[in-house]
């Protein structure tokens, strides 16, 4: 019964989304106040319907209703409650429903928080969101329905994929999806602005908080996914340049560029076409990522059972959404004229450079990801593009990004003077140079450059905050008081940059990791990376739907417990890495196998690895802190700028 209600709610959501699209897009043309007022109500009802559908699927998962094919295939009664819920979005059909739910949540957010928007703009934004929603809900209902029943129902489900039975992976998809799908709001604003024919400072002010909140979630989602692969896949790697990882990185790159150029639209009414294009590109790349994962066109470790028919449906949706918006861009955007002019050395120029470099980075990652399938189209030859390509191309491109990042925030708007900026950057430059010289002697050049780059970004972000607090002009106590009173958007931006610097440090540090695979019997010890690792024992322990073997390792007074789990239902063995961190170095042990009663262990020392995710956390928190700024808050009237 409940699954039928969910199925019905899904069909209702499709109808409401179609109505929302029609009313939202036609209403402003007719200047009908009833239509303008109806759009937000339709968005609220569409969310209610989508939430009912999703709730019904979660319910089926919780009560283990194996007459629903989706639950029978991906859950079982032995799975703990937490994973019976998170398992709902751990598979293809369920995850696309979550995708739709978040999209309708975006519509709800605009309907509720967009009270200060002009009625016609709000109706158009909701119309665009409704159109996208309608497409994906229709896709879910027709070719990817999670409520499909099977009869007779099996005694028990097939069980959840053991790798997904992990708290990190329960939260990773929803966070990533909020990030991906959240950019639909910025996209809808861009389309609505093109339809209205007006992109001005107000547009920049409206679009920025939406882009920022999505960016925070996307940053968090990517960091969480990377952390998950670090501790569960047992390779000791944190980023594999897998096509699906790249698909999440691409909108992050353009979304970051969007955040930066929307500032210029808001403050200086320039870079309008760029901002609109980045808003369209970011959501288009989110959609493309979804398509690439679902259609199975790319070879990836992220195995969703692929189906070319579903791929064709999504490709058609993409054609309408991306093609339509870029056509509108080609027609309407050429008339957008910049109001503000600026000198070559100015904050605006630094932000243009940011856009250029991030755009170049996007192009490179996009090319590397799509080169193998595209080469196949033209030549029929099949190749693979791996990590070496991305490392060779993205690392050089990150050098100018890191350099600009340090200097940009210190430049004045319109026209900046060089001398005071150089004076303020002296500290960051000295720190970077010292680190570079000290580390080049001990390690390789790339590592030293990475560490110096991280230090440059961190010190210059701190310098930025200190200067704004007036540390050179007033007493330390007064400067601290001023620091607390700084606009939160400025502090958030500095935190965002600082977090990026911390991540760069972590990535550079990880190049110094020492790794080894050893076979030990209990009592034996080995020296790896300057630490003495001793295997004490191997013990067996039962789990809810698996049995596990746990190795006990003593590492210079610390105890690590890497384990192997045997999932009998799926006949799968997973290795859980044991990680000990002191905040700066990770000791990483994986129980890889048990040849002849010995323990095959992978023992790694990862310097600065925690900083990779700490930086991601700081970036996301910086974004949220910035969001709490009164001037950025959605719905708060804009204060006069002095």
């Amino acid at each position, binding site marked *: 019964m409940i699954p039928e209600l969910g199925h019905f709610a899904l069909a209702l959501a499709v109808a409401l989304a179609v109505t929302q699209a029609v009313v939202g897009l036609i209403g402003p043309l007719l200047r009908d106040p009833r239509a303008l007022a109806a759009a937000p109500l339709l968005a609220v009802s569409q969310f209610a319907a989508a939430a009912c559908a999703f709730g019904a699927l979660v319910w089926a998962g919780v009560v283990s209703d194996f007459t629903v094919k989706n639950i029978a295939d991906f859950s079982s009664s032995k799975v703990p409650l937490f994973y019976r819920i998170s398992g709902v979005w751990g598979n293809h059909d369920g995850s696309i429903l979550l995708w739709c739910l978040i999209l309708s949540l975006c519509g709800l957010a605009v309907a509720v928080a967009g009270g200060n928007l002009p009625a016609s703009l709000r109706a158009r934004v909701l119309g665009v969101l409704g159109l996208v929603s309608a497409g994906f809900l229709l896709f879910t209902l027709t070719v990817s329905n999670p409520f499909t029943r099977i009869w007779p129902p099996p005694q028990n489900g097939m069980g959840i994929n053991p790798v997904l039975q992990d708290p990190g992976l329960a939260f990773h998809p929803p966070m990533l999806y909020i990030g991906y799908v959240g950019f639909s709001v910025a996209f809808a604003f861009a389309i609505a602005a093109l339809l209205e024919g007006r992109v001005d400072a107000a547009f920049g002010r409206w679009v920025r908080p939406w882009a920022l909140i999505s960016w925070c979630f996307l940053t968090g989602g990517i960091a969480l996914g990377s952390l998950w692969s670090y501790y569960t896949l*047992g390779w000791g790697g944190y980023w594999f340049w897998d096509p699906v990882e790249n698909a999440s990185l691409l909108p992050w790159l353009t979304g970051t560029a969007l955040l930066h150029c929307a500032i210029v639209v808001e403050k200086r009414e320039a870079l309008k*076409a760029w901002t609109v*294009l980045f808003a*369209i*590109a970011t959501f*288009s790349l989110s959609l493309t990522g979804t*398509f690439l994962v679902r*259609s*199975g*066109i*790319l*070879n990836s470790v992220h195995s969703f059972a692929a189906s*070319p*028919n579903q*791929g*064709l449906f999504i*490709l058609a949706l*993409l*054609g309408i959404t*991306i*093609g339509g918006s*870029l*056509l509108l*861009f*080609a027609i309407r*955007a*050429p008339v957008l004229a910049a109001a503000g002019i600026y000198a070559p050395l100015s904050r605006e120029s630094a932000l243009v450079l940011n856009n250029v470099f991030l755009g170049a980075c996007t192009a490179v990652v996009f090319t590397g990801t*799509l080169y*193998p*399938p*595209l080469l*196949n*189209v033209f030549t029929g*030859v*099949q190749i*693979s593009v791996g990590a070496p390509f991305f490392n060779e191309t993205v690392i050089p491109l990150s050098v100018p990004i890191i350099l600009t990042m340090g200097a940009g925030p210190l430049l004045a708007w319109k026209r900046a003077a060089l001398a005071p900026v150089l004076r303020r950057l002296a500290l960051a430059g000295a720190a970077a140079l010292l680190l570079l010289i000290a580390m080049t002697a001990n390690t390789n050049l790339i590592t030293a450059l990475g560490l110096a780059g991280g230090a440059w970004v961190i010190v210059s972000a701190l310098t930025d905050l200190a200067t704004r607090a007036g540390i050179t002009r007033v007493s330390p106590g007064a400067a601290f008081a001023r620091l607390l009173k700084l606009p939160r958007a400025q502090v958030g931006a500095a935190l965002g940059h600082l977090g990026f610097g911390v991540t760069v440090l972590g990535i550079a540090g990880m190049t110094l990791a020492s790794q*080894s*695979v050893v*076979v030990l019997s209990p009592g034996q010890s080995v020296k790896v990376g300057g630490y003495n690792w001793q295997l004490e024992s191997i013990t067996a322990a039962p789990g809810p739907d698996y049995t596990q073997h746990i190795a006990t390792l003593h590492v210079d007074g610390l105890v690590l417990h890497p384990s192997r789990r045997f999932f009998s239902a799926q006949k799968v063995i997973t290795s859980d890495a044991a990680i000990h961190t002191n905040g700066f170095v990770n000791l990483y042990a994986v129980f*890889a*196998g048990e*040849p*002849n009663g*010995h323990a*095959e262990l*992978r023992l790694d020392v990862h310097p600065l690895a925690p900083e990779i995710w700490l930086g991601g956390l700081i970036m996301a928190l910086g974004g949220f802190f910035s969001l709490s700024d009164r001037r950025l808050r959605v719905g708060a009237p804009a204060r006069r700028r002095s």
Partner: protein
Amino acid sequence: MSPLRRRLLFGVPLAVAAAGGAAMYTLLGRMRRGQYNPEAFPSPLLGKPVPVFSLPGTGGLPGFANTDLVNMATPVLVNWFSSWCAVCPQEAPQLAELAAKGVPIWGIDYEDTPAALAQFLSLYGTPYTRIGNDKSGLTAVNWGVYGVPETFLIDKTGIVRWHFAGALTDNLVQKQIEPLLERYA
């Protein structure tokens, strides 16, 4: 910039997206007809002679060169492996079974040390009759190896007839390797 050029410039994103969409449409069509499988790792060496190489022996066994792979009495399996490879032990039973049936398996030890190799062989057995030592990994580049383990079937004249990236399974041995061994015997 002239207004016309500005208009054309703003149409570039649309043109790029349209080209990308057309390419994706072509690929989906090929996937439906079974002409494109992104999961497959075809070797560019299929149907061609093995590239020129000469590797010294290791693990107490002789090495080999491309010249050893021509004029063979039977087809040979060339198995790329390494002691640090976590997946390699999984195919030890399959390799042992093939070796017991008299199939010559020549190993190439990829970026490894003799000490680690000796320990690996003592743990998982030695199905190999020769082991070449590719310490630098350069031969792997010439062979187009994606990663270890990887197995090539070379016929009696030195032509690569079959290739698989990943650990061998019973299914692969029965359905693919054994029929090919008979065909090229």
